[in-house]
């Protein structure tokens, strides 16, 4: 089987400048035609240069985490519920990834003691005076007639 220059040119465009990668049924004929014709050799050289130009085309590699991102995005999302105090603390504890249950218990206890302190502080106002009592004390102070040291 022989290949004329026109066929060779077409195959060059369709299958590219690497004749060794042409389909099996035309490869041998292509190589034989190439060996005997300097015109075809020049065509091949031109095609190689052209393909070299085409391969200079800009390309950016994908982000390294592309696959990971796609898989994460496909995870079923949990329905949003009303926030509860336990849920909030559980999420908070999880977010900071406390390693041991003991540490978690200590943190929760500290928060509890803090809240308890506030509650006791507000419910038992030691040292606060009623308005009436405050006025009486002021009068006693202003009109004190006793001994001044």
């Amino acid at each position, binding site marked *: 089987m022989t290949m004329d220059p026109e066929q060779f040119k*077409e195959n060059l*465009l369709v299958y590219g400048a690497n004749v060794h990668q042409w389909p099996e049924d035309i490869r041998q004929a292509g190589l034989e035609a190439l060996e005997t014709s300097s015109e075809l050799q020049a065509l091949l050289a031109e095609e190689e240069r052209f393909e070299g*130009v085409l391969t200079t*085309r800009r*390309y950016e590699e994908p982000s390294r985490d*592309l*696959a*990971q991102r796609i898989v994460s*995005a496909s*995870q079923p999302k949990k329905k949003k519920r009303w926030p509860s105090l336990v849920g909030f603390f559980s999420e908070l504890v999880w977010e900071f990834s406390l390693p041991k249950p003991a540490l978690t218990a200590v943190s929760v206890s500290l928060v509890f003691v803090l809240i308890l302190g506030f509650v006791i502080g507000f419910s038992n106002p030691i040292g606060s005076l009623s308005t009436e009592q405050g006025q009486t004390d002021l009068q006693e102070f202003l009109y004190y007639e006793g001994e001044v040291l």
Partner: protein
Amino acid sequence: MWVTREHPHGAIVFVSDHGARKIIENMDTGFSHLDDESLIRQIQQGNHEAFAAMVNRHSNRFYRIAYRLVFNKGDAEDMVQEAFLRLWARPQLWNPGKQAKFTTWFYKVVINLCLDLNKKKKPQELPEDIELADRKPGQDALLGIHQEQALIDGFIKELPERQQLALNLCFYEGLSNKEAAEILGIKVKALQSLIMRAKTTLKEKVKRHQGGGSI
């Protein structure tokens, strides 16, 4: 909620609210021996690990064709993500009776998404000349490379859509004419004609740009 964390050995670890963990080694545990068609059957049964394996296997390949079509990294990644999420949401769309090969079908999905995006986007003019304020040694060569890249991109963008697709699939992706023709839904002869026309046009444009001489 499940979040992913990277394992020191490159595995992907899914961690739930309550600390439950499932590790998918390289997102391919137990699935690396399966071919695409078997994997998608698993996906159709709701197997998320099979889906992860599929994404891990093919995301870069489909990113390449998406990038060649939308000319932008961010958009290309979004298109690939969108295509895979559609696959996960509706895996029954792949019908083994109709489509012989998963990748052939999925190329169509990605290509269609990219073409839709291109239709929505305004055409952008590629800069003919890029000027740098202060040129340093070595920048001239870099500038030359960037200009050449922009030029080739510009020439390819000017090709008719089908010629661009044929060129991208066969020349840049290295697919066989038969597979590319199947993706585009045309006959092999028609595909070859598209490649020839695309290359001939590009060759003329490159020659004209280089002053009419040989390339």
